[in-house]
């Protein structure tokens, strides 16, 4: 048995790790998996960087930020497996949501119209609303910024962005300390159930294929332990396949609801797993496709183009200056080579490319893979823009205009 310690945050998208351990999949592959529950991304990052754990459940942008030296100690990381696509939402206080037009489900269906509505509501509000995100380098923050900017709302000037840990969001919303937040599940549902807020936008409707969490490890550890990395990825692939099947989802929700993971009622967790989202305390509920992707449509494949999209957003918001070296380092965190090496010959089809246009597929489509056709998409951004990883400069000019 090879002992591996993985740090994680109690979120619905730690599902694959939990399943790998609890269903005995890790054990079958000779891995004694020790999952270390933490409460802040800073602590998970430190555990990983300072060798207290071998791997971490990490925000994809944070993995890139650590590699680039933007978040405390700089360290070379490798992210060979993506743990989830989508799964986030934006929740507003009932007061702020009341300023938006449309029925709750219409707001979700029309993210562009909703944020333009918000822009009008902000003018009436006559103060800067406080919007919380879980981390500066989180997919939530990048998604919220992307959405706000569409309506001409400058996320650094027109609103006050704050970082708040997810478990404190509901309380802060109820007390009026914040006006809204963007977080993963089950925290939006938790705010709705507490009567503190309404879900006004879903990550999967802002970007239909938004990368969320990755499995990150130190590059030196990955290099020194190739055989262990392969077994770990085989384990996660098998666990992800299990998690993906609708008939397993109820069991998955029960497993995640226990005190060692989310300590949240299974019913609340099921909403994200079945894409049945309760939007308001009044009970408006909506069925959405692709709310959280754990395996199908190459969800686990670490696309370098997605790393580059994150890099492009870092440039857009002034987190760093462009340099060819920084671009190379950012895309280099995502190790499609390790994914391919570990899963070659397995049942999961491997895409033949490591980069793709992001946002170009309006529906599910077959692309070439090593085992016949692999389904990708839909992956559109709500504003219809397409990101070409070979033309980052052009993309940024377009998006700024």
């Amino acid at each position, binding site marked *: 048995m090879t002992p591996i310690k993985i740090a994680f945050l109690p979120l619905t998208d730690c599902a694959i790790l939990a399943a790998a351990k609890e269903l005995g999949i890790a054990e079958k592959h000779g891995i004694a998996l020790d999952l270390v529950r933490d*409460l802040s991304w800073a602590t998970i990052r430190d555990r990983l960087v300072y060798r207290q754990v071998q791997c971490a459940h990490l925000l994809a942008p944070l993995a890139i930020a650590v590699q680039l030296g933007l978040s405390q100690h700089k360290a070379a990381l490798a992210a060979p497996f993506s743990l989830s696509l989508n799964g986030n939402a934006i929740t507003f206080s009932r007061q702020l949501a009341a300023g938006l037009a449309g029925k709750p489900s219409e707001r979700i269906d029309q993210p562009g119209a909703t944020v333009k509505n918000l822009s009008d509501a902000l003018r009436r509000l006559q103060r800067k609303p406080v919007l919380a995100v879980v981390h500066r380098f989180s997919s939530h923050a990048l998604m919220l910024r992307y959405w706000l900017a569409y309506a001409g709302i400058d996320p650094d000037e027109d609103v006050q962005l704050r970082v708040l840990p997810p*478990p404190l969001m509901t309380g802060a919303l109820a007390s009026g300390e914040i006006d809204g937040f963007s977080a993963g599940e089950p925290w939006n549902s938790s705010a709705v159930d507490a009567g503190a807020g309404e879900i006004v936008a879903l990550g999967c409707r802002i970007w239909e294929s938004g990368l969320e969490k990755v499995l990150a490890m130190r590059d030196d550890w990955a290099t020194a332990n190739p055989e262990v990395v392969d077994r770990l990825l085989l384990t996660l692939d098998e666990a992800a396949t299990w998690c993906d099947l609708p008939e397993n989802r109820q069991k998955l929700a029960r497993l995640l609801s226990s005190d060692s993971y989310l300590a949240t009622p299974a019913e609340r967790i099921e909403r994200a797993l079945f894409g049945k989202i309760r939007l308001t305390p009044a009970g408006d509920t909506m069925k959405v496709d692709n709310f959280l992707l754990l395996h199908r449509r190459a969800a686990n494949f670490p696309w370098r183009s997605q790393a580059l999209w994150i890099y492009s957003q870092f440039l857009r918001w002034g987190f760093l200056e462009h340099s060819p070296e920084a671009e190379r380092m950012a895309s280099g965190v995502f190790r499609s080579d390790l994914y391919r090496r570990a899963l070659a010959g397995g049942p999961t089809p491997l895409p033949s490319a490591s980069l793709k246009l992001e946002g170009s597929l309006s529906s599910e489509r077959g692309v070439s893979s090593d085992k016949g056709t692999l389904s990708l998409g839909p992956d559109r951004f709500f504003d219809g823009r397409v990101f070409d990883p070979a033309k980052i400069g052009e993309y940024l000019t377009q998006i700024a205009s």
Partner: protein
Amino acid sequence: MVEEGLLEAGFRDIVRIAAHGAFVAELERQSPDVVIFDLGSPSRDTLEEVLAVSRALARPIAMFVDTSDEQMIGAAIEAGVSAYVVDGLKKERVKPVLDLAIRRFNAFAAVQKELEEAKSALAERRIIDRAKLYLMSTRKLTEANAYALLRGTAMRQGRRIADIAQALLTAAELLESNPEDEA
């Protein structure tokens, strides 16, 4: 615990702030040289964001005392403590602060554990005492014989005496309860 230790070591200017609500504003007012933070607190992400953008705390801040000293950082993470240090403060001055914080955190954790162990030991002894009393009154045994009976049963079943005592008390309660009450 950390505070006491720092006071003893001659650091006088210590302010304790609870890490929720408006703690960031308070932190800015205090404008500290070193921030010692509990790694188990979810508010660490909030603190780091403030350190990154705040005007009052706008000087560059390094996490931990010396990021090249991995052993020490390991010890700090293990103990559950992190320190944020205002750049420019001499490392030699800060290292003992963190050293001390780590020692105190560890000592605190150890004391907690002992307390819990002591508490559960006490609770178990009470259960065993009650089981002995029950046997003494129902089977007319002496205290020593009652205990010997519990111990012998525990040994035969490969279980702990406290577990046997608890099982006995539960059974006794069931037998004595009036079925009518449950209806």
